[in-house]
C-alpha cells in the first residue's frame, strides 16, 4: 500500500536525453565530449574562416604571410574591402551574380509547378499506366545527367531533325538554344523533375484521404481540390524541394558549363569563379573575395531555411 520507489526510467526521460538516454554520464565526461565536438567543429571551419579572412585582406599582406597571423597581429593584418569592390566591378562578378539568379529562380519554379500537377495525378487520380509511369520516375532518379549532355547539346545546336518515313523528306526545326537562358532553364527543369515528382508525390499521397474524399463529396473537382486544398497543405514539401533545387542550381557548374558557356555577359558565378581560377590562379585577393561572393547567398538561404532543406534531403535526396 505504500508507494513503491519511483521508477528510475521516468526521471531519465524527463531529462530529455534521447538515443543515449539512460546511460550514466557524469558531467566530467560530458565536458570531454563537449571539448571534442568543439574541436572537430573548429578544425572543420578553418578552411572557410581562412578564406573569409583572406578576402578582407589587402593583396600585399596576403602574399607576405599566412592569414593565421591575424590572431597574433590583428591590427596590421591589412583589412580592406577593396578585393570585393574589385571582383564585383572589373571582375564582372556583379553580372555573374545576377545571371546566377536569372538561371536559378526559373529553374526552381518551373519544375515545381509541373511536378506538383503530376504528383497530384499520380496520387489521387486513377488512370492506366499510373504505376508504370511512376516506376519510370523512380528509375530516372539515379540516371546521371551526364548521359543527357551530349544529346541535348546537339539538339540545342541544330534543333530537332526528323525524317518522314517512306519519303526523303527531313524536317528540321531550327533552334539555337545553346548559350541561352531558355535552354538552361529547360534543361534544369527536365533534370530536376524526377526528384520533384518523387518527393511531391510521396508527400501529396500521404495527405489524409478523408480530406480529399469529403471535398469530392462536396462536389469539388480535381482542379479546385488541387489549388485550394492540396497546394496549401503541401507547402512544406514544396518549400523543401524549392530550397534544395535552388541551392543545387545556384551552385551548379557542369550544366551551366555545357549549356550556357563562358561568355562574360551570360556566365554564372561558378563559371566566373572557375575562369578566374584558371586565368589568375595566384590572385588570392580576388579569388577569395569571388569565392565568398558565390557562397554568401547559399549560406544565408541555407541557414535561415535549414529545416526545410534537411527535410528535402532526408526524403530521399538522390539527385541525378
Amino acid at each position, binding site marked *: 500500500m505504500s508507494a513503491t520507489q519511483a521508477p528510475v526510467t521516468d526521471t531519465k526521460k524527463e531529462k530529455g536525453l534521447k538515443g543515449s538516454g539512460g546511460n550514466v554520464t557524469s558531467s566530467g565526461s560530458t565536458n570531454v565530449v563537449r571539448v571534442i565536438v568543439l574541436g*572537430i567543429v573548429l578544425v572543420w571551419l578553418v578552411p572557410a574562416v581562412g578564406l573569409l579572412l583572406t578576402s578582407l585582406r589587402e593583396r600585399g599582406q596576403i602574399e607576405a*604571410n599566412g592569414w593565421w597571423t591575424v590572431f597574433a597581429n590583428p591590427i596590421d593584418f591589412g583589412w580592406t574591402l577593396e578585393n570585393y569592390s574589385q571582383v564585383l566591378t572589373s571582375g564582372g562578378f556583379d553580372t555573374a551574380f545576377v545571371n546566377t539568379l536569372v538561371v536559378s529562380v526559373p529553374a526552381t519554379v518551373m519544375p515545381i509547378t509541373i511536378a506538383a500537377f503530376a504528383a497530384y495525378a499520380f496520387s489521387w487520380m486513377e488512370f492506366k499506366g499510373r504505376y508504370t509511369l511512376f516506376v519510370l520516375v523512380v528509375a*530516372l532518379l*539515379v540516371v546521371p545527367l551526364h*548521359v543527357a549532355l551530349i*544529346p541535348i547539346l546537339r539538339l540545342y545546336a541544330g534543333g530537332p531533325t526528323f525524317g518522314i518515313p517512306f519519303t526523303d523528306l527531313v524536317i528540321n526545326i531550327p533552334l539555337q538554344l545553346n548559350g541561352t*537562358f531558355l535552354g538552361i*532553364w529547360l534543361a534544369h527543369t527536365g533534370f530536376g523533375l524526377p526528384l520533384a515528382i518523387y518527393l511531391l508525390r510521396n508527400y501529396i499521397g500521404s495527405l489524409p484521404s478523408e480530406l480529399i474524399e469529403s471535398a469530392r463529396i462536396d462536389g469539388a473537382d480535381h482542379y479546385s481540390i488541387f489549388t485550394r486544398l492540396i497546394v496549401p497543405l503541401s507547402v512544406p514539401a514544396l518549400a523543401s524541394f524549392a530550397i534544395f533545387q535552388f541551392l543545387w542550381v545556384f551552385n551548379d557548374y557542369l550544366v551551366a558549363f555545357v549549356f550556357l558557356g563562358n561568355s562574360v555577359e551570360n556566365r554564372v558565378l561558378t563559371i566566373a569563379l572557375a575562369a578566374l581560377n584558371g586565368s589568375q590562379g595566384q590572385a588570392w585577393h580576388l579569388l*577569395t573575395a569571388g569565392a565568398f561572393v558565390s557562397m554568401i547567398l547559399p549560406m544565408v538561404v*541555407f541557414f535561415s531555411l535549414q529545416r526545410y532543406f534537411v527535410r528535402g534531403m532526408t526524403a530521399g535526396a538522390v539527385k541525378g
Partner: protein
Amino acid sequence: MSDMQVQDPDLDEVGEGSLQDKREGNAFLVGLLSIAAAIAVPLLLFLGLKFTLDVFSGLPDLVTAVIAILVGVVGIFFVYTAVDRGIDRLPPRFGERIRPYAWCGPAVVLLTLFLIYPAFNVIQLSFTDAFGESYVGWDNYVYVFTDEAMLRSLRNTLLWVIVVPVAAVAIGLGFAVLADKLKRLESFSKSLIFLPMAISFVGASIVWRFVYSFRIEGSGEQIGILNGIWTAFGNSPVAWLDQVPWNNFFLMVIMIWLQTGFAMVILSAAIKGVPEDILEAARIDGANEIQVFWRVVVPNIMSSIVVVLTTMIIGVLKIFDIVWVMTGGQRGTEVIAERMIRNMFTFRHFGRGAAIAVFMFVAVIPVMYINVRRFREEESMR
C-alpha cells in the same frame, strides 16, 4: 418476371458498330487527346518563353528574368488551367479519362525529352565518330578501357567511390553520436558541420586550393595553412596537389568535407530513432558504451547507413567540378566525368564522350534496379 441477366456488352451483336469497336475507337481518341493535352503545356511554355525573351531581348537580364518567371510560373498555371477547362467541356466520360494524362503528361513529355530520349541517343552516339556521324563500331569502348588516362580515371574513380562515402559515413556517424550526447551545443555544432553543403564545389575548390597552397622554400612565408603547419614542425613545404598519387586523396578530402554533413544529418536522425528500451536492456546486461554502439545501435540503423552509402556512391561517381577546377585532371587525378567533358570540349570527340557517359549509366543500373524493386515492395504493402 423476366430474368435480368447481366450481359457482357462486348458480346452484343448490334450489327456493324459493335460496342467493342466503339470502345477501341474511343480509346484511340482518348489516347490522341491525352497526348495533345500532355504536349500542350511544354509546347506553350516553350513558345511563350521564347516569344517573351525575343520581344524583350533589349531589356536588362534581370527584368527579362522576372518576366520569364512570371510567364513561366503564372503561364504554366494558366495553360494547365486552360487545358483543364477545355477538358471540362468534353463529355464527362471522355474528359475524365483524358484529365489525368493532361496533368501528368507535361512532366512525362519533359522527362522523355531531357532524360529518356538522350539516354537512347547517347547509346547510339557511343558507336559513332568524333562528330557523332559515321559508325565506328566498338572503337570508343576500346578507348575507354585501354587509353592510359582513361584507365587512370577508372582507377581513381573507384578509389573515390570507396574512400569518400566510407569516410563521410564514419565521420558523420561518429560526430552524430558525440553530438547526441550534448544538449545545448548539439544543433549548433551540427549546423556548422553541415554548412559546407551550402557551398558550391567550385567555391570549395577555391577554399581548399588556398589550404593546399604552396611556395617554394625560400621564396617567402607559406600562405596555405597546411604548409603553414607542416613547416612549423621544421619540414620543407610540400606541393600537396603535385604528389602523385596522393594528390587524389587530397582532392577526396574536399568532397568528404562537403558531404559529411549529409551523412551526419541522416544518421543522427536514425540514431535518435533507436528505441530506448533496447539500449537500456543492453546496458543493464553490462555492455559498455562501445559495445552498445557496435552491437545495438549500428545494426539498428543499418538501413539508413546503406541509403547514405548508396546515395553518396552515386554522387561521387559523378565527381567533376572539384577535379576540373583544382588540377584539370592533370598529374594523375583524372576521373571519369572529367574525362567525359574533356573528350566533349577539349578533344571534341563526341563518340568517346558518349561511350564514357554510357559507362556511367551502366554503373548506376544496379542501384536503379534496387531502387525500383524497393519501391515496388513498398507499393504492394500500401
